[in-house]
Structures are given as C-alpha cells and as structure tokens.
C-alpha cells in the first residue's frame, strides 16, 4: 500500500515586520513545515511502521528553498519526495485551491497511491480546501478534519475515521479507499526527527518536476483569485473583571453569557 502525503512549507512573520504592498519582505519571514502536515506525515509513517504501508511519498509545490523543510518530512520517515516548481509558478503571486488541485491531481495520477493524507489547512494562506477539492477532482472518497484513523481498517480497504464537526460534535464514518483524508492536529503525537533520521534524509530523493513534466502548462496556474490588499488586523482586547465573591461573580458571568446568546435555542 502506498501513502501520498501533501506537505507545504509555510511562512511565519517575525514579531516585528513590514508589509510592502501585497507582500512581506523575505527578511521578516521564517519558513517551517505546515503544522497540520506534520501530523499527516506522522500518521503516514505510523502506517508504514505498522507494516500497512510499503511506501510513503511526500509531495509539495514549492521553490528550491522549500527542500529544507521537506527534508524534515523525510527525516521523520517519508521515503522520498516530489517537488513541483517552475517559472510559471514562480511568477504567480497567489496559488488558489483550483491551481493546487490541478497540479496535485496529476501527481496522484502518476503515483497512484491508495491513500492521500493532507493537512486540514495551511498555516499561512489557510484556504482549508485543497484536500477535499483534490478528492473531488479525482473522484475519490474523502473525509475532512480527521482526528482518528483506525489503522487496521486501512488494510481491509476501508478507512474507519473519526471526524471533527462544528461545536465539539464528532462523526465516525467509513470511507472506501482510495481516498483523501485531511488530517487534524492532535490525531497523533508527531515525532521529532532524530539525528539518524536527518542523516538518512540527506540521501533520500526529492524529485523536482515542472508543470510540463506533469503534462500541464502555465494555464493551470491561472488564478481566479487575486491578492488585492494586505494589512495587519487591529487587535482589540476587551477584558471584563467581575467583582465580588464567587456567587456574585458567577451570576454576573451567567448574565453575560446569556446576553451573548450562549444557551439560546
């Protein structure tokens, strides 16, 4: 069984930064493996360690710099990686869900995995839709926001998963493989890369591919979305202190919650 994990290098800004138009200068950015993807990698590696998966392949859309981050996935146990990038991607200032779907769809066709694990969302652009959109394009089944996967079930060709719904409600459901699961944080405890793993990762393959290699052209990354503005949201903090003993304070808190609509039917 083969597992494909989609991973993304995400940018985080330092405490102090400046916005120039619709971008932030490199000097203020730090790159890291997307947090959700870290959990997806761990889930895949656990499937491999349990003898259920034979191969774990990581795929990313990103510039050469992102290899550093992708190596982290290899150091944690993925067997090899595919990295898609070229001038057309370099030139695009925003990759929307449609573009990512088009690219990943081709990779899935080439790799033919039994199961695709993606993060629920990316920490920087936060579309939160790529995994499900990919499943839709491929005609695969999917489960979004998965916080538990029954590994034994995977072997029998059906993934029994627990999904997080709104308001603390959870759903248990079965999806037929091949399928895309979008992985929620907390599903497992991602390991640290060991020094041995980091050494081994240096010898693992990260295959670079262009859109052309996948049979796509620049049109694939033409976006319907356009980045029009970038600004720092105002942070507001509004703290209310309740005076008096516990009884009194609890009463005031109850009034406030009721007023805000908690408990309303």
């Amino acid at each position: 069984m083969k597992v494909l994990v989609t991973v993304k290098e995400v940018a985080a800004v330092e405490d102090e930064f400046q916005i120039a138009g619709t971008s932030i200068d490199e000097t203020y950015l730090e790159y890291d493996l997307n947090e959700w993807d870290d959990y997806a990698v761990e889930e895949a590696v656990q499937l491999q360690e349990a003898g259920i998966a034979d191969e774990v392949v990581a795929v990313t859309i990103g510039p050469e710099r992102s290899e550093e981050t992708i190596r982290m996935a290899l150091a944690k146990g993925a067997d090899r990686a595919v990295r898609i990038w070229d001038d057309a991607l370099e030139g695009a200032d925003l990759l929307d869900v449609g573009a990512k779907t088009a690219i990943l769809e081709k990779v899935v066709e080439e790799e033919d995995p039994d199961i695709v694990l993606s993060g629920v969302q990316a920490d920087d652009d936060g579309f939160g839709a790529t995994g499900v959109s990919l499943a839709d394009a491929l005609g695969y089944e999917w489960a979004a926001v998965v916080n538990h996967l029954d590994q034994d079930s995977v072997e029998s060709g059906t993934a029994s998963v627990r999904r997080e719904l709104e308001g603390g409600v959870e759903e248990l459901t079965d999806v037929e493989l091949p399928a895309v699961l979008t992985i929620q944080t907390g599903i497992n405890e991602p390991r640290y890369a060991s020094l041995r793993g980091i050494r081994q990762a240096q010898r693992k393959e990260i295959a670079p591919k262009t859109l052309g290699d996948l049979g796509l052209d620049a049109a694939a990354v033409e976006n319907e979305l356009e980045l029009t503005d970038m600004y720092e949201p105002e942070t507001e903090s509004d703290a209310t202190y309740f005076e008096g003993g516990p009884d009194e304070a609890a009463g005031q808190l109850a009034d406030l919650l009721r007023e805000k609509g908690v408990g309303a039917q």
Partner: protein
Amino acid sequence: MLDFVGLESDLGDEERLIRDTAREFVEERVRPDIADHYEAGTFPTELITEMGEMGFYAPNLDGYDLPNVSETAYGLLMQELEACDSGLRSMASVQGALVMYPIHAFGSEAQKEQWLPDMGRGEKIGCFGLTEPEHGSNPSAMETRAEAADGGYVLNGSKTWITNAPIADVAVVWARDKSSDGNPVRGFLVETDRDGFVVNKITEKLSLRASITGEFGLNDVFVPEENVLPGVEGMKGPLSCLTQARYGIAWGAVGAARDCFEVARDYATDREQFDTPIASFQLQQEKLAEMATQITTSQLLAHRLAELKERGDLRPQHVSMAKRNNVRMARDQARVAREMLGGNGITSDYSPMRHMANMETVYTYEGTHDIHTLILGQDLTGIAAFE
C-alpha cells in the same frame, strides 16, 4: 536568536536541521521543567532514553547505529543543550564523549558491540571515573590501582565528583596497573553491580543541580581481562576523552551565554523604570553590546575549532584555549545578565542565575581554568609550570 555575524546562515542543510530539531526538543521537552529540577536537585531521567532516540549521545561517531554527524553539527547540539542547562549538556557529554568515545576509540570489538548501541539509545548509562578525593587537577597521581588476578584484575580505590555515577550501569575507571612495568594508567569497564562497587550520591551541590553526581569506592572489585580497554595505556587515555568533551563544552558555553543574553535583552526592552524601558539607558545598552560581542567572538572560536577538528588539525591546546575562554565568557556574562534582571533575576523564573551557578562547575571540571592557563603557557613557552 543572537548570531550577530551570521555564522549559522552558512550552515549546511543537515546542520541546520539538527540545530532546529535540538532547539525544538529542548524547548518543548526540557525547558518547561528545568528550573523545578534544578531546585529539587534532580535530573529529568525520563529524558535519558528520549535523548537516545534522538541520537544525542556520541552522534559524531561512526558505526554501531550512531549517526556520524559533522563536528559542527555535534557542536551545535551541545550549544542547544547547554542553552537550556549545563546539566543536560553534561549528560550528553559524559555519555558520549567520556564513555562511548573511549570504548569506540580504544575498546575491543566485543566491548563496542556490547555497549555502543545500547548506550547510544540511552538504555545503558555510563560514567567516567578519573577524579579522586586527593587528586583532581593532577590525575596522574591517582591512587586507584589494579592488580592482575586469575583471568582478570582486582581494583581498589575511590573516585569522586563522578557525573551520573549513581545511575550508571557501567563506569570507565582509570587506574594504575600495578602488575605492568612502570604502572601505566589503564581504562577498565566496571559494571556497577559488581561486588565491592559502592556508590554514594553527592547532594550538597550549589551548582549543576540538575545533574546527578556521585562518588564510588572500589573494594577488591574483580573485572575479567575482557573488561580492560585494550587500545590505550597512560594518561593519553583519559586526556583524549577530555579533549572530546571539552570541545563540546566550548560550544555549550556559547549556548548558555546566548540564553542569558536573550533573556536579558527581552527583559530590558520590556521592563520600564523612569517611564521608559531600561534598554533605553546607555548603561544597559553597554552591557548588551559587550555581551553580544563576547558571545560572538566565542562563537567564532567554536566554529573554527569545528573546522580544525573536521580536517584532523585540532590540537588539545586549541581546545584548552576555547574551553578556557568560552567558559570564562559565559560565567562573566551570566552575571551581567542576572544583574540586568534586578530582583527578578534572583528567582528561578529566569535562567541567568541558574546558568551563572552552573558555570562555576563548568569553570572547574574538565580541567580548571587555571590548568588550561598552564597548558597554554606550556604550549607558548615550551616550559611546563605544572609537571
């Protein structure tokens, strides 16, 4: 994080990943509880095997499931461990540089197979017994002795100030071989459960409190011939181990000082007196400027040492200079950082005073500051002032 002349921007991919991983591990797994351990005088023993899984013990050695990373990567690891606490770095130094290294360099194939993989995973713990109650700076005057007996040796003597002795499975004991001509110093692998091996914990420490230290006595302890390290005779044995460990200390001290600097800088930009952050006062800026300069020059020395070690040109005297300079630097700068924190700096909520107290041990062990001065003096003049 202070790296003023960007030495770490020139790191290779692998080295950067190792630094980041060590930093993340320390931040999440160790730092939250380290002050409590320090106060209680305990080591987080549950981390011993976790650090083994991470590959933190002797990662610069080859074979036997060891990662064989570059000397720079090894140095960065020591830097990140000591940025948390010298006790953490000491755990890795003793296990890796003082116990696994001599087994790797001087041990028989059977000894290597028996100990290195298990010690690398942290499933077996080692300690290094050189110092004795009456012989510290001059270990060559050691009294611990080995007499040949049927099929092996009988050891007698005592060792003190031995890091990890109370939790060790095996001790590398350096002793005079009374049955050989000239009574050469030899290394013995002594399992701590052998009859006649008695260990006590040293509890009154005011420094390196998050590290377990002990003393042990050897009362007619028999070890078979195959427990002798076959590949070395004389003081070269223990001294070559110390060169490995001191190399790590030269890097570690930079980490401890950097942590002090970061805490002091944060505090100074945050804390207001006379209606302005204390960082706006020239007196405080001078402290930060000097601290950053001292840390940076020490860091340069550490990086240069790595290059020399990697290509085989590192001399023990180079390591003496770096250990001497960098530890003194960390000791001085920890005090300055503590001072910038005012009264709050006196509590264990902030790391500088803990580092400051730790540096008293680091200044003393692995060759005191004075002894490294004498080693350099001898190297520079050709005249030994201590032999």
